[in-house]
């Protein structure tokens, strides 16, 4: 069965012609989005994997700021296209233990990047998201997905969304953040978050939220250093008994 699944995924990403893909993705996405909306109206169980209520999700293991996809959006899924991308490609040099690393940050461009994003996130987080979950975020909000590359290898990524919460508030949501274990302490997590938030703010976001386990000290430090505060404590958010914290950053 593994063979079949990997074949499926191979089929999905083969024969890529970038522009063509974008066009097709949109028409397919429309169908997906209708489906997601329909799913939301029908209730939890209809939803594809990963978009169900928070109690189902397992914790991420220690990392520099990996967050779990958890929020069940009860909002209308808008076809939000982020109009500005302050920096779509930037290389930063960081030194760690006397070694210099050149990390290139770029915004998501095509499906070709999806497998490496999935691989990175699956390594860090125990929750098995299907490809559809990644597509939901990345195809709807590609300008909010950033990758960190080292020598052309993806070593960090962030996946977000931005939509209207309770018909009033424009809310950014950080769904997943992962940094390869070998590349910690290089400010990659912080930089990815900063880039994503800049785009959100440029698109009139009122606030940014995310959830993380109360035991995830590195993540809490990262976000609090940027001005996030702990808005709510979510008891038994993860069914293994660990509480989560909802972190919020207000722009107004």
């Amino acid at each position, binding site marked *: 069965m593994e063979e079949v699944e990997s074949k499926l995924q191979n089929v999905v990403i083969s024969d890529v012609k970038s522009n063509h893909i974008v066009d097709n993705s949109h028409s*397919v996405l429309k169908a997906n989005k209708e489906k997601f909306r329909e799913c939301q109206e029908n209730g939890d169980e209809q939803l594809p994997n990963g978009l169900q209520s928070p109690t189902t999700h397992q914790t991420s293991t220690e990392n520099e700021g990996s967050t779990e996809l958890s929020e069940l959006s009860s909002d209308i899924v808008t076809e939000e296209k982020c109009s500005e991308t302050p920096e779509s490609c930037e290389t930063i040099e960081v030194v760690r233990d006397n070694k210099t690393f050149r990390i290139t940050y770029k915004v998501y461009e095509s499906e070709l990047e999806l497998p490496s994003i999935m691989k990175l996130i699956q390594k860090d987080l125990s929750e098995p998201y299907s490809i559809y979950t990644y597509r939901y975020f990345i195809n709807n909000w590609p300008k909010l997905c950033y990758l960190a590359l080292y020598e052309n290898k993806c070593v960090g990524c962030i996946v977000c969304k931005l939509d209207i919460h309770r018909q009033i508030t424009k809310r950014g949501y950080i769904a997943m953040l992962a940094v390869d274990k070998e590349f910690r302490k290089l400010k990659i997590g912080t930089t990815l978050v900063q880039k994503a938030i800049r785009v959100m703010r440029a698109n009139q976001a009122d606030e940014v939220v995310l959830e993380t386990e109360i035991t995830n000290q590195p993540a809490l430090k990262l976000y609090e250093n940027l001005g996030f505060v702990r808005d709510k404590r979510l008891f038994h958010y993860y069914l293994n008994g660990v509480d989560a914290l909802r972190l919020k950053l207000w722009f107004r």
Partner: protein
Amino acid sequence: MFKFDMGDSSQSTQQENKPNYNWKDIKDEFFDCVEKLEVGELEMQDIFTLSESTSAVVMLDKASDIGHFEKKEDFPLSFKVAVETGQLKLKDFTYSELIGIFDSLFACLASWIQGTSIVQSILTCLYLHNTAAIEDKYLMSFCNGILKISRTISNFILRAGVYEEEDFQSNLFNFDLCDEIIARKVLAALRDSENSIQNCLRKLNSSDDEFKDLTAIISRIKYLRLMLQCLLELFPTRLVSPDESKMSDITKLLAGAIEVFPEIKKTIDRGTQPDPESHSPNPIGFSPNVNLRLIPPTFPRYPRIISRVDALNFLEELPKNIRLACKVIQFTNFQSVLSFFLEFSRIAEPCLLSRSVLQIIYFPAKGKVFGTLNLNEILKDSARDFIGPPGLLPRHQLFHDVQAKECIDLFFFNNGHIFARLIEVFGYYRSRQRYKIEELLTDFSNMQYEAEQVDAYCRKQFSSCTSADNCFESWSIYYSLRAMLHFLLLGFELELYSICEYFYIYWYMENVTLSWIISTLAQAEACLVEQKCSTEEFKNLSRGQKRTRLIKKMKPFDREMKIMQTLQSLCAGFCKAVGGFMKAGRIPKPLPEFDSEKFRYEHRFAAFVDFTAPQMISYQEFKENQEQIFTAGQEVLFLGSSHSFSQAKNILENLPNLDQELTSMLKVAKNNMVVMKLLANGHKKESKLTPNFDFSIHPCFPAIKQL
């Protein structure tokens, strides 16, 4: 592509029929068709939509596909098949096996109360699926007892309703929880087992292994019987809580359960222990996946059953908490009731059942305290005891004014539900309380407005020149402030505030919330004293010592005021301490690009925005205040802080009967007084390290320790 028959998912057999295979290999055909699709394209049909495709993609994935089992022993095993294949015995249990089953059932019971679904905890025990077939008297009576107590527990929890989906899985999936057998018979069977074991014990030597095993068994059966009986008797009959005499009997049962528990804990090793490699809580009698098809596929495959040690600790506290809950019938004064609920919420925090029991005892019926007293009447009494509004005093003219009476009655009629909800809030887990209080604060602000109107009306009807002019408003403000204070303190307890926020949180509590509570209490007390002094009996007392002594005695809020003053001094201490650290550059600040202290401040206190008393202090006003404080140098601030902690210490040292919480506060005050004094004297002047705020002694007021 193929069909695999899992059998039906009900309580009866899962594997009645052997699976029927109907394989047809269509791999090549499938991949041929797939070639025609573009990347990202999906073929949808009515019977195969996005939902089905996402499930198809994860088929046979061990984490996502619930029909896929890695190990043979994880395969669901029904009662019938287990018995037929000899995997489940129904008689000839060793004592160790019985103890093992009993303890794992206790672990499942505790897990269920703490949030695991009943079908993934208690009902994974196959014996519970058909207790009538069990041939061992002890096991049968115990299993029926477990089923019966589960039904009773769910009655309490569902009725009280102080939980959310993540706290407790309320779905019982229509399982028969010994509902056919009446409680009396279940209890009789348990007692029968106990008597039988007692007879055996008489013939044995206390040093025999058999004696120890049987003692272990009898203590478990006794605990279950006593707890079951107690819960059955506590549940309100005809919407009325047990009276004092019945409560006394119930308390005796609870004492018995508490007494027998040490024996249970002592003998935990005498039972069969779970295999650490397996998901089953016991080597025999359980099939963790037997009910898998009942639960949504999103639930965890292997639920967490808490360890036996943790379960027993939980069950040991249960009768103690319930015994404490029973004490609530002694309180009729609402102020005391509120304090009781607050305190209980802190003590019984981990146990939803205890908190539910307390809710049911107090409100067995909506709006009726203990089922017999009208909540609105109790609230009126509370207002009368708090500040003595003329409209509620029988000897006052206003009391006999029909229109004033109507106005007052309407006020309580409209707002009584707020207090009912406040009581309910304290039944929830602490983390839920905070945002429930936030929601309730809007209602409190509306109530304050209405109270102002009532006061205005009363003044118009009977102009008085006493200080009892704003009685109802004061009373409303007092309870609003209690809610606000709890809201702010919970933020510390739930670890919500970052270190860069401490200054404005403590500042707000010191200068606004606590300051208002103290002045409201002082005003209320003054009113009560004035009223007492105006009575005939007081006027007849001779002047001098008798009168002065009596006035001193008439300080109903003395203790509470002192506690509030302690809190205020502690907050002042922290405010100045953090201020000093900020001046010394020792409090880390977030990066400025996205951070805004103004927005943080405004959102943190957003729940107070609708109040007129106290009016929310704007960020600008706060900043002006902060600037004034910061004109002092850091050493001056540290010295001021030390004085404030010293003040708190003095108040507490002169307060009799300190409970555990006040004792912790005293410890913190003493520590901080010393540490701040050292800093004031220039100790570690050049340090830039962030000080350590240790919340282990008290969750809201940390001991300051330098790194």
